């Protein structure tokens, strides 16, 4: 089975590497879109550091939303493990991505064994519209909605915060009295949120609300990233460069700018002239219709349409071992290949690309 193509032509991997390295060496501004595990991310960032250009995640927009909560504000957080063991009052903020529903259901099926040890109660801070897939989860959890008529999630959060501080506001929220009663008895309430469900502004409001509640009692939040790999890549980028993703390298020095180094924007604006797509996720391919040269590292059996070079790569935890961020434990986890395959890891391919570049530069991975 082929693992490498130049255009639509199957070639030996070494030829594809050589060809891709040539493109990398000659381009003016390469950009890298990531969607891989920690080691894939580390190697890609190391390569980008050598070459200049910029790194972003395939889900860069929602990742930027999540990152911005931290860079602009901070907050109070706890882990899924601690929430499970200690929290008798869980408040879901907006729509939690389906990937986390198992976790929430596991919490629902267990009882806190630390702190007040009461059986868990659930609330749900919602905008006036909620999707049906989410509705099913909420029914399973018996989550009571906190919502106001015609209010967006951001407005609802503002209203709730004002109300809990005893300050005036113009609307009212459903179930607010029973929520206040629940808050008064719970020792460690936990708000659960994701970057895909609320704009950063709403997340900042939520953290303000949590800070208010911590003046006298204890409250925290669990951050469930919209995408675990995206968050893992952001963390790896942070230690390697000092910055989260949407970091560019001018003269090998990293600079963080979520506007300037938005890779999709750079491609659309033709500021970049080479797109390196790095995804070990099955079925994920670069957006169609890009007008610049493309190197595609994808989990694929066919050449990527429009790519100058395609190299098939595996997925950590499926084809090969790796390390991935897991929101189940709120940190990194070693993942083992479920169905080991011949597909090489991203880090291996990127390492070969780095080795094939002309000149001798330090590859920091």
């Amino acid at each position, binding site marked *: 089975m082929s693992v490498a193509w130049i255009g639509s032509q199957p070639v030996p991997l070494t030829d594809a590497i050589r060809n891709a390295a040539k493109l990398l060496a000659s381009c*003016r501004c390469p950009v890298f879109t990531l969607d891989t595990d920690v080691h894939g991310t580390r190697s890609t960032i190391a390569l980008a550091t050598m070459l200049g250009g910029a790194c972003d995640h395939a889900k860069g927009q929602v990742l930027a939303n999540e990152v*911005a909560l931290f860079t602009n504000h901070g907050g109070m957080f706890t882990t899924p493990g601690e929430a499970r063991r200690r929290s008798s009052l869980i408040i879901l903020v907006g729509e939690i991505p389906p990937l986390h529903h198992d976790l929430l259901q596991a919490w629902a099926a267990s009882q806190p064994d630390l702190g007040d040890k009461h059986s868990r109660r659930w609330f749900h801070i919602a905008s006036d519209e909620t999707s049906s897939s989410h509705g099913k989860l909420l029914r399973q959890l018996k989550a009571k909605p906190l919502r106001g008529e015609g209010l967006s999630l951001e407005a609802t959060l503002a*209203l709730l915060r004002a109300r809990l501080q005893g*300050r*005036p506001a113009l609307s009212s929220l459903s179930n607010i009295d029973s929520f206040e009663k629940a808050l008064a008895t719970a020792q460690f309430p936990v708000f659960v949120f994701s970057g895909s469900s609320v704009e950063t502004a709403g997340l900042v409001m939520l953290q303000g609300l949590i800070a208010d509640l911590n003046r006298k009692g204890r409250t925290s939040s669990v951050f469930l990233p919209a995408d675990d790999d995206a968050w893992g890549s952001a963390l790896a980028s942070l230690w390697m460069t000092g910055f989260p993703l949407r970091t560019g390298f001018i003269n090998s020095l990293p600079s963080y*700018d979520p*506007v300037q180094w938005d890779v999709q924007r750079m491609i659309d604006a033709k500021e970049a002239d080479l797109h390196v797509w790095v995804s070990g996720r099955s079925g994920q391919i670069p957006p169609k219709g890009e007008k610049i040269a493309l190197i595609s590292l994808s989990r694929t059996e066919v050449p990527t349409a429009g790519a100058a070079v395609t190299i098939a790569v595996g997925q950590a935890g499926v084809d090969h071992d790796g390390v991935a961020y897991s929101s189940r434990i709120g940190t990194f986890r070693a993942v083992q290949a479920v169905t080991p395959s011949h597909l090489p890891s991203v880090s291996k391919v990127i390492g070969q690309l780095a080795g094939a570049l002309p000149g001798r530069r330090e590859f920091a991975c």
Partner: protein
Amino acid sequence: MKALTFSLLALPDERLDLSCLTPAALAGLTDVQIAKLRIGTSRNPALVGDVFRITGKDVNNIVFEGGSSRFDKVGAGLSAGSVRVMGDVGNQAGRRLSGGTLYVDGSAGTHAGSGMINGRLEIKGNAGDYLGGPLAGEITGMEGGLLIVRGKAADYAGDRLRRGTIAIFKGCGDYAGYRMIAGTIVITGRTGAMAGYLMKRGSLLLDRPPENLSPTFMPCGEPDIAFSRLFDRFLMDEKIMDKPLLGPKPGRYGGDTAVSGKGEVLFRQQHR
């Protein structure tokens, strides 16, 4: 003396960082030295001479003939003198401007006037997101000066404004005055949703009643206050407006009560 003029030869392939082209940074440099300054941001970065023809000598009066949305950080750190761009600019125009004037004859990208400290920045066209706002990580936005947009502003105009005045003439997107700490934002035209969200203090001054405020903004009637007359006069004296904005008895909302309720939205009453 003729203004030091940078005439655009051809649109660049890459974004340019033009923060080095200010009176203070160029003082004492010869044309040859200026032409060798690096402004590109890609692997083979362009030099000034690759992109611009340089004429004129008056370094306190800089003119860009032609503009581009790839001209980033134009007039960044300007502390005195004048920079004029006869076209569009990219992001962070007038970043940390502390004196002098920057005039953009076209439109600006994001973060125009980011972290301005003093001086005047006027944009004839539209401005992108985060007008006057902080860059990622910074926790205060504009700290002083005058920032005028004759066209529209996009979202998050005046993000974390701390001091100074922003005036926007053809309306703006959502979250105007987001997390304002203090200062004043004048908006004529339509304002998007959630203006003043999370504002701690400061004033949003509108030429019409606000729409789509967070429910944490409370109506405070329409008391007769001397401030509106004083500010109207300031706007006219500074040639920001040619007629009063608020009039003597503006309507008022107090908010954001989610934070403290110490900020305000003042607006011109329609029936007057």
